[in-house]
């Protein structure tokens, strides 16, 4: 079995398998959350809370009172640099948009490759800084579980292999493309069963918090 055959499997049946497991896991996770229900609110509501929910999704992403010093600076700066970088790389590289076009029929304009490249480097540096911080800060070390290292590696692998594929580092492109797509498939497979689900549940939780606060007429 040569690498060309491996790439073919990864682009075909492997991707189908990964997508199937991802959707399977996410459907379980989200339905479990939604079907669990919440306690009935017996108090009269001030508002429906729907708008407040959406407001909270946004407001929790901003520093409180516009002052980032009120958040742990290191985590805040590098955390945002990594997430923004990852977002740009994932959604604005032309070959990535082609995947969405093929799977969902949705496409949008791409960014020039060198721009995406800069965001990739930002993400990679930020992720390494965050790992270093996690390994050196006594508090973070105390809070860290093995799963934290796993999800770090699962996220880092596609970024690094994608960067290496684009720049033809170390291995031939066919190898790097296989490793890149393969690492994304591994990420998809483990996504629903790890804390990576925060990419979805984050918005659900924030919206719910905002809605509850809105119904009580308080700011969240």
């Amino acid at each position: 079995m040569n690498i060309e055959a491996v790439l073919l499997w990864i682009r075909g049946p492997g991707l189908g398998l990964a997508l199937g497991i991802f959707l399977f896991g996410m459907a379980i996770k989200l339905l479990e959350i939604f079907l669990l229900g919440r306690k009935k609110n017996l108090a009269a509501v001030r508002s429906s809370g729907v708008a407040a929910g959406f407001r909270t999704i946004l407001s929790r992403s901003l520093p409180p009172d516009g002052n980032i010093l009120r958040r742990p600076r290191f985590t805040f700066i590098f955390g945002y640099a990594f997430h923004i970088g990852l977002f740009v790389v994932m959604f604005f590289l032309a070959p990535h948009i082609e995947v969405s076009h093929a799977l969902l029929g949705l496409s949008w304009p791409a960014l020039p490759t060198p721009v995406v490249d800069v965001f990739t480097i930002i993400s990679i540096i930020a992720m390494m800084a965050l790992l270093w911080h996690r390994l050196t800060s006594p508090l973070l070390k105390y809070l860290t579980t093995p799963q934290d290292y796993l999800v770090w590696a699962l996220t880092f692998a596609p970024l690094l292999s994608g960067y290496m594929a684009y720049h033809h580092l170390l291995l031939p492109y066919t190898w790097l493309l296989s490793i890149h797509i393969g690492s994304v498939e591994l990420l998809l497979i483990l996504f629903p069963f790890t804390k990576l689900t925060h990419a979805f549940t984050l918005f659900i939780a924030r919206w719910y918090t905002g809605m509850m606060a809105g119904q009580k007429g308080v700011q969240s």
Partner: protein
Amino acid sequence: MKNDPSLLEVLRQQGVSRRGFLKFCAATASLMALPPGMAPVIAKALEQAHRPSVIWLSFQECTGCTESLTRSHAPTIEGLIFDAISLDYHHTLQAASGSAAEEARMAAMKANKGEYLLVVDGSIPTADPGYSTIAGISNLEMLREVAADAAAIIAVGTCAAFGGLPHAKPNPTGAVAVSDIITDKPIINVSGCPPIPVVITGVLAHFLTFGTLPKLDHLGRPLAFYGNNIHDRCYRRPFYERGQFAESFDDEGAKKGWCLYKLGCKGPVTYNACATTKWNNGTSFPIESGHGCLGCSEPNFWDLGGFYNALSEPSVNTGNAAAFGLVAGAAVGAASGIMARKEKDNTSHAHQKVTVNDLKRGESQ
């Protein structure tokens, strides 16, 4: 063989000047990524070389490889070098037919035992030997027989190198590559559908000069020609970098010569020399005429997921797997959610409320 004219004599007879010959040697040296000092060595070796005996076997093929090598642009030095080998058996080109042709093959095999080159184009059927026979001999049998005493084998074209089009799904004839059958001989894969003519003459020149095969990649292809991918050598690469892509074959982008990645170009994973040596006597290569690379020098290029689908797109329809995952997940999730809800209800029903009396009883104890 001793009385045969040398290669240079053959070329002289055909009107090739010494200057033209040396130019060819220098070009071959540079094409094969050899140091410039090797050009005279190649010239000397070729001057003295006697016409090597070549037996050419055509199996499940379309004759496109032979067409490419003999008729693409005539006459060139490559073409003449090709004429200058002693092609002792090639059932498309030779004048003899029937048993006379087979006798010529047997005679060449006997006279040059262990020294002749075997060139194969086309894949070999293994499902039923009757799918392809020559003079009543199955392809498999003939390949084994001729390969046994060959010095080396050159698998010309993607069919002979990797199975090619006959090997494409569902592969009704059970087509395989030469290297799937012969494992004890040096095999050099000159893939492509068809391959570039100069690659064949380059390999022949290397063999005549050094008596060895050139350096090969992991798929047995000469690195000098298959060391770079089309994408890296493509003149449209700057458009890829800038994110300027043709969206259809007749839009503004296509007219401006933008990158064909979105239209299915397989250049990034295709290793061949098209972008540098070009076709039709150096005129152009497919991307220059506005069509993406099909990846014809790669194994299974026919099954890479559609010629007009971008390389990053799934190579098969993943809709079924995704739908199955979603439906199964929804079913399990719903069941799990309902069970959790039931448990919650049961717990709240089982919950015993503490009454004032209970508290009083506690006090009295």
